[in-house]
């Protein structure tokens, strides 16, 4: 059944937030014409350690959202899949969540919560795989002094559609680090957003994406510095190859008048590997106080560096291998931050494969 198909909620593509997104390829998620399913695909891959629970329960949202699809998700999905990590729990090994099922014929509306108690420390890796239409309201709450590394891997099959908000609420002296990897799907649109609720909080948003022929990947950050003395870093790197590969990176950082002592920097770099691809990159820094430690942004979009390729080839390395090395190297800065060799290797192989298929 379709949900909340009210006209005023339906984006037309003229809105700032939707101006890049190919609405027609969202399989009805944006206008409510999709058939919704009762799937609950997110499961834990392995038994959970002590101090960790994963349950379904009714929870009210942590934060308001102005995203139409998130509103639909909240209207249509009552239960929240809740991964809870108790106070003072320090986990050496990552918790893996994965997808148990999917379908292109119906859409899953999913609400997820990760909550860390005070001084808890964990890494959560979410494997988004398979063929699916999935809209997700992902909220993450970090209690004072807690520390989370949140890795989301968009390794969907080629026809999948994923639209999501990954929203973190970071309390006093808590450290949030996200690594968002998008390499699969037809349309992937993620809103990695952060709000700080007390001083001493910090967030590092890292990401890589690789779009090949026809794929659309959008990452639209929003970091809200609404308290003094919080720190944020954003670093997203993307590569594109093949006709009509299209990526969008929007980096909105807001430093409110009260947010004295803010320290923020955001960076987006894109590598265009072939003709016919398009990378949009829009850093957006809004500063309402001058009493800050630092605020900056940078955005670059370029092609293969001929000098790098020449250097490598002058040592006997073929053009194809040189390109592979450069692309791997480009992504390595972020991928190497994932503290799991198996995942690192899998992603690098996927990137090699994409590169080969694109004939770049």
């Amino acid at each position, binding site marked *: 059944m379709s949900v909340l198909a009210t006209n005023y909620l339906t984006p037309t593509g003229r809105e700032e937030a939707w101006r890049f997104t190919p609405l027609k390829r969202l399989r009805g998620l944006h206008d409510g014409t999709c058939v919704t399913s009762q799937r609950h695909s997110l499961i834990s891959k392995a038994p959970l350690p002590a101090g960790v629970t994963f349950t379904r329960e009714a929870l009210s949202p942590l934060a308001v959202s102005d995203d139409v699809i998130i509103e639909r998700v909240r209207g249509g999905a009552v239960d929240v899949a809740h991964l809870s990590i108790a106070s003072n729990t320090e986990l050496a090994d990552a918790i893996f969540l994965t997808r148990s099922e999917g379908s292109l014929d119906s859409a899953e509306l999913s609400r997820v919560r990760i909550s860390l108690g005070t001084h808890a420390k964990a890494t959560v890796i979410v494997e988004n795989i398979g063929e699916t239409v999935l809209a997700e309201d992902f909220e993450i709450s970090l209690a004072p002094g807690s520390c989370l590394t949140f890795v989301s891997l968009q390794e969907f099959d080629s026809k999948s559609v994923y639209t999501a908000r990954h929203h973190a609420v970071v309390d006093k002296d808590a450290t949030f680090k996200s690594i968002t990897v998008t390499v699969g799907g037809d349309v992937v649109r993620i809103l990695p957003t952060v709000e700080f609720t007390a001083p001493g909080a910090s967030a590092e948003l890292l990401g890589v994406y690789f779009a090949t022929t026809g794929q659309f990947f959008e990452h639209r950050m929003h970091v809200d510095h609404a308290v003094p003395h919080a720190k944020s870093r954003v670093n997203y790197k993307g590569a594109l190859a093949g006709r009509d590969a299209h990526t969008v990176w929007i980096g909105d950082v807001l430093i409110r008048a009260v947010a004295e002592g803010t320290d923020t920097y955001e960076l987006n770099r894109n590598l265009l590997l072939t003709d016919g691809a398009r990378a949009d990159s829009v850093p957006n820094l809004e500063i309402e106080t001058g009493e800050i430690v630092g605020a900056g942004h940078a955005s670059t979009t370029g092609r293969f*560096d*001929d*000098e*790098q390729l*020449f*250097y*490598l*080839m*002058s*040592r*006997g*390395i*073929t*053009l194809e*291998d*040189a390109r592979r*090395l*450069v692309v*791997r*190297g*480009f*992504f*390595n*800065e972020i991928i190497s931050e994932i503290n799991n060799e198996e995942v690192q290797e899998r992603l690098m192989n996927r990137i090699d494969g994409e590169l080969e298929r694109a004939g770049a």
Partner: protein
Amino acid sequence: MSTLEIRGLKVSVNTDNGTVDILKGVDLTIKSGETHAIMGPNGSGKSTLAYSIAGHPKYTITGGSVTLDGADVLAMTVDERAKAGLFLAMQYPVEVPGVSVSNFLRTAATALRGEAPKLRTWVAEVKGAMEALNMDASFATRNVNEGFSGGEKKRHEIMQLELLKPKMAILDETDSGLDVDALRIVSEGVNRAKADNNLGVLLITHYTRILKYIKPDFVHVFANGHIVEEGGPDLADKLEANGYADYVTK
């Protein structure tokens, strides 16, 4: 025994102001075991000669030939030239972000040897080459040329020379930016490669000081895109005393 033969080489480069001829007919023959120093003022075309032989896409060959043991070097891709036995130690080695020195070296050795070197012997080989050049072991895990000091970049180039074992090496101002100690260490590396592999060397330099460490058999003075005078090691002494003024005004 190998021979690198350069005949009537003419090279131009495209600039915003149109095509500029840089090399105007260069003749030079280098045999295994020989060291040829090419000396000349800035802007005379020395580096263009080096990069043209290595196949840099910026340069257009407009005449002449380059052969290595009879094979047409100019018809080869850049990597094929390396596989044929040519090596260019660059004046400004390029940074390759995210690619570790050890990964880079192993990829290059695999390409040049036709098979991946056996891990155990390879690790020892790299370690030995690094120690010989006074390089710290942590070097292998750093990204290629990223954040390297000038001296580190040059040591890294010569380490590759020793590991990759070419037949002919072109050293493009390898001495620039080196202090006396680094110059000696780097020169010793070149001399080892000469002794071990009967390497032929084309040593491009602006100053005579490196020739105290790497003894040339022949000295060629380069000015205005071609060789204007040739001689033995004595010629370097004359240049040291008189500079390039005589040649530039010719």
